[in-house]
Structures are given as structure tokens and as C-alpha cells.
């Protein structure tokens, strides 16, 4: 096997190029060209003899061209001699490339760049918010139309989605809330016991679960489980132009795709919240019995004293609103997916992050609201 070489010839200002000038030799070729012999600037003409080149591909041809341009920059006139016929076309082709000046990067001021980022973030936030409001509005309009013409409602689709986001979610929701209820009870008993107040753990578990934790945990889980699925489904439909196809058939994607999903979610979330809260209370009761030594009948009796229907109402009233926020965010993010697979992933992440954030913000607003009306 021969090696590529670039050497000074016997005659002055003559270079001899030989060997295989191919991709397989790329690393040594680059070194050869980078360390090409310097030619006395007095001589105008440089002769590059490439008759000894055995193989040549784009990589080798470009490096030869680069060698030539390097000498041209030194005000020399290089020429190839002994060009084998089979390489002529390639060399001519390569002679024309990389002629345009590369696109220059404009170096930005750090401060202005930082300010620009903040500005962009603010604008993005505004755009996000507008998308969300637009989606809420579109859902409202579509819902009004469905109320006026109940036959336009896609009941089958809604029930199918109810099955997916409601029924199929029950096991995991029940399991997680059961565990959380148990954990809260365990922590309560452990710390309350220090000042002999372990009986109050029932109040804590009851109120916390029914008012806040039940609906929050379930909403966050639904956002992660069903919200992301909505975004991914709508996003891939957007990518494959299915949504455009619907529009051209005179159908409204909000009515056909989004409204049934939102309705399913609005129905499913209160049910899941109820199931989740019960599972959490059950978990709390079980821990109180096994870990705290509190009998079931005492737990139930204390629970009856501690919680009222109001606590339960406060929790469950929030659920449909949470569902609406999750659904609207998931669907609007889904419709914002662009052509690439990467954008689908990006919007799905955004959907989950935003809906969880909004769920928690909404929960805070509800807390203020219920406190002010004395519930």
C-alpha cells in the first residue's frame, strides 16, 4: 500500500504530489497540505505535478485546490501539470466551490444579547398567553355551537377519550394517591406524636387531601399522562397535514378533534379526583392503623368531625377548571407543532411544563378565592 506524498521536486518551485489522495488518508493529507513547502516569493510560477496521484476523490481534490489557493494568496501563480484525464472533471468541479465568502458571524455585545434574550422571552410569554386565550375562546365557541346543535357534538369520540383519560387512568391515579395519603399520615403521626397530638393527623390528612392534595396530584398526573398524549397526537396530525386536510373538508379541527378531548378531560378529572381523594384517605387510614395504632372506627369517627362537605366541595369544584387548563394548553401546544420531529418533542415538553405550572397557579388563585368567600 502506498502513502500520499507532497515533496519538492528537483526543478526549482516544483512540487510533486503522489499516492492515493482519498478520504481514507484524510488526516495525513490535511497535515501534508498544512505543512506544504514554502516557495521563494521571487519565483512567480509554481508547478504542481500531480501525475503520480493514484486515486483522487472529493476530499483529495479539495485539498489540492486548497494547496493551490494557499500559493495564490502568496501572490504566486501555481499550475497543475500532468493531470490524469480521469481526474480532470473532478478538479474542474472543485475549482469552483467555496468561492463565495463564508457567511460571517456578527459578534453581538453581551449586554444587548442578554437584553435581547429577556425581550424575546417576554414576547414569547405574551404569544403563549395569547395562544392559550385563543384556544379557550375557540373551545368556548365550539362548545356554544355544540349546545345549540347537540348533534354536531362528537359523542363517540368524547366517550372514547373519556375511556382513555378517565377509566384507563384509574389504577395509576389510585395507586399514587394511596401512597401519598399514606406518606402524609406517616409524617403527621411521627411529628405530632412529639407533643401528643397524633390524633390530629386525621384532621390534617382529611383536610389536606380533600382540599388540595387530591386535586393537585391528580391534575399533575393527568397533565403528564393525558396532556402530553393530546399534544403528541395533535402534533403528529399537524405534522402529517391531517389537520389541514380536515380544514379543506370544511370541518373545524376544534370541533372534531379538540372539543371531544376537552369534554372528556373535564368529565374525567373530577371523577379521578374523587377516586384519588378516597384512595389517599384510605392510605392515610391504613398507615394510621398499622403505624399509629389508631383503629379504623376511631379514624372514621375523627374524620367525620374534622372534615365537612365544604372541604370536599372546595377540592372537587377545582377539578373541571384544572381539566380545562390542561386540555387547552395541551391542544394549543399540539397545534403549534411544526414540521420536524424535534418540534413535536419540544411542544410536548412545553405542554406538560406549562400545564403543571398553570394548574398550581390556578390552585393558588382558588385558595385566595375560597378564603375570601369563607369556604
Amino acid at each position, binding site marked *: 500500500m502506498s502513502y500520499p506524498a507532497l515533496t519538492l521536486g528537483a526543478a526549482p518551485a516544483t512540487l510533486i504530489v503522489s499516492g492515493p489522495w482519498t*478520504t481514507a488518508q*484524510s488526516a495525513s493529507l490535511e497535515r501534508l497540505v498544512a505543512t506544504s513547502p514554502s516557495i521563494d516569493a521571487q519565483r512567480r510560477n509554481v508547478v504542481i505535478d500531480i501525475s503520480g496521484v493514484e486515486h483522487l476523490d*472529493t476530499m483529495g481534490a479539495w485539498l489540492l485546490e486548497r494547496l493551490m489557493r494557499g500559493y495564490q494568496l502568496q501572490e504566486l501563480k501555481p499550475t497543475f501539470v500532468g493531470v490524469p484525464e480521469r481526474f480532470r472533471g*473532478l478538479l474542474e468541479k*472543485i475549482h469552483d*466551490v467555496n468561492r463565495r465568502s*463564508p457567511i460571517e458571524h456578527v459578534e453581538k455585545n453581551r449586554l444587548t444579547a442578554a437584553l435581547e434574550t429577556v425581550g424575546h422571552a417576554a414576547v414569547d410569554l405574551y404569544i403563549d398567553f395569547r395562544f392559550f386565550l385563543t384556544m379557550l375562546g375557540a373551545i368556548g365557541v365550539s362548545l356554544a355551537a355544540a349546545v345549540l346543535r347537540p348533534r354536531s357534538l362528537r359523542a363517540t369520540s368524547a366517550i372514547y377519550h373519556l375511556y382513555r383519560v378517565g377509566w384507563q387512568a384509574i389504577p395509576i391515579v389510585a395507586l399514587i394517591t394511596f401512597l401519598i395519603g399514606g406518606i402524609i399520615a406517616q409524617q403527621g403521626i411521627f411529628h405530632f406524636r412529639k407533643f401528643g397530638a397524633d390524633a390530629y393527623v386525621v384532621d390534617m390528612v382529611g383536610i389536606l387531601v380533600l382540599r388540595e392534595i387530591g386535586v393537585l396530584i391528580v391534575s399533575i398526573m393527568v397533565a403528564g399522562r393525558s396532556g402530553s398524549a393530546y399534544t403528541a397526537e395533535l402534533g403528529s396530525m399537524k405534522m402529517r397535514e391531517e389537520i389541514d386536510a380536515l380544514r379543506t373538508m370544511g370541518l373545524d379541527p376544534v370541533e372534531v378533534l379538540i372539543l371531544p378531548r376537552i369534554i372528556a378531560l373535564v368529565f374525567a378529572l373530577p371523577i379521578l379526583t374523587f377516586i384519588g381523594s378516597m384512595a389517599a384517605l384510605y392510605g392515610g387510614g391504613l398507615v394510621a392503623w398499622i403505624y399509629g395504632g389508631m383503629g379504623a372506627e376511631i379514624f372514621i369517627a375523627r374524620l367525620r368531625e374534622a372534615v365537612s362537605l365544604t372541604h370536599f366541595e372546595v377540592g372537587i369544584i377545582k377539578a373541571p377548571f384544572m381539566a380545562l387548563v390542561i386540555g387547552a394548553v395541551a391542544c394549543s401546544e399540539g397545534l403549534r407543532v411544526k414540521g*420536524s420531529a*424535534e418540534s413535536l418533542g419540544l411542544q410536548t415538553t412545553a405542554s406538560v411544563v406549562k400545564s403543571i405550572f398553570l394548574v398550581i397557579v390556578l390552585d393558588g388563585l382558588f385558595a385566595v378565592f375560597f378564603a375570601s368567600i369563607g369556604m
Partner: protein
Amino acid sequence: MLVSAQSLAISVENLTVGFGEKTVLDRLSLDVRRGEVLGLVGMSGGGKSVLLRTIIGLIPKREGRITIMGTDTDYAETATMHNIGGHCGVLFQQGALFSSLTVQQNVQFPMRENLEISDTLLDELATAKLEMVGLSPADGKKFPAELSGGMTKRAALARALALDPEIVFLDEPTSGLDPISASDFDTLISTLQQTLGLTVFMVTHDLDSLHTVCDRVAALADGKIVEVGPIVQLINSQHLWVRSYFHNNRAESRSATGN
């Protein structure tokens, strides 16, 4: 015609490929000579893409022998297989550009992974390849999602050519392109094939490509190559399916308009 093993780029012997109960390719044999453009035609769902994917090693075969550049793919060591990877460039039907990388990064990717060269040279080579397929350096900064159909094919071809392969596989290179872009792409394939001395294996449905670019055409029917030779030979073939392929209304109107 007797062709010595040395001058064969790809040699497929008695290849059988199937999925489950179904046999897609049935003891198929086909030779691709060095430096030629071979077009492969066949029914939709008839196994053209399966043949291509089996040759490049994406689909396992049941029986038979595939030899690429004189190396039997079954007995090749991993290192040689890697080398075969360097021999072959593939242009997938949808381009299969990595959507998270820019066009330029897509072209650089195989080089960056396989070669030890400086970033400057990588940039220069990427621009060179892009210009060779008719894209501008500005296009290199774009993401695949921002490209038109024709540009996607060109960018994907540039990536297929990144490692200066000896064999290029093209899976329906002109499908989804308008006639002007398709004919430009045909010209591009011919020029590159001539300047770089490539062997091209092309699956296509485009009669114009078959006429203008291909040296030989192979027809795949019922899991076998039923006819292989210059396009004229296929047009005059007696095989039923090949006849109907080249003598249907569209093919006839094409020859009537004087091509």
C-alpha cells in the same frame, strides 16, 4: 456477457428474503458493475426497497450471498463492514436528514464520526459537497424542516456523498419532485456519477430517469429479476409485467412526444 468478479461493485446471488410467511425476494440474483448506473423497477410493494435495504444490511436475509466490492457481507469482520459502510452512501426516499442538525451539520456528521480532520476542513468540505449538489452555503445553515422537497433530496445526496463512497444507493430519488427539479436531479446524478466515478444503484419509477441516467435497468417481478439490460432491451421484453410497465398509456405518450 461475461463479467469478471473484479469489475463487479455488487453481486447478489440466490438471495431470499421474507417476513413471516411471506417471501418477498425468491432466489434473486443481480450484478452491478463498477461505474455503471443501474436502475431497478418493479411493482409497488414488489420488494424493490426490500432488495436495496437487504443489500445495505438493514434487513436480514434468509439465504443467498451478497458481495460488495469483493467482500462477502456474511464473512466480513466488523472492521471490514465498517469499511463497506465507507464504500456505500445511501439516499433514502424521504431524505432521512437528522432533523435536529442543520444541513451543514448533517453533511459533516459522517465525516466527523469517521475522519480525524480539523473543523476548518470539515466546514470547507461540507460547503464543497453542498455546492456540488447545487445548494448554497446559506442553505447549509438551514434545518431540514425549512427545505423544499428538491432541496431535501440534494442535501441528503450531499450527506450520502460525504465520505466519498464508491457506491451510491438511491431510493426513488426523483419521487415527489416536480418535472423540472426531477430532471435537474437526474442531470446532477449523471454529472456526479461521471466526475466521481460512482457506481449508482437506483430504485425508481421515473421513466425519464430510466431513459436519461441509467446504463442498465433491472426489472423485479414475483421476487426475481426477470429482465436486466439496457432500456431498449426492457422495452422490447416479452415478459408480461415488463411489457405492461413500458407499454402502458403513460409510457406510450412519453415516447410519442419524442423522447
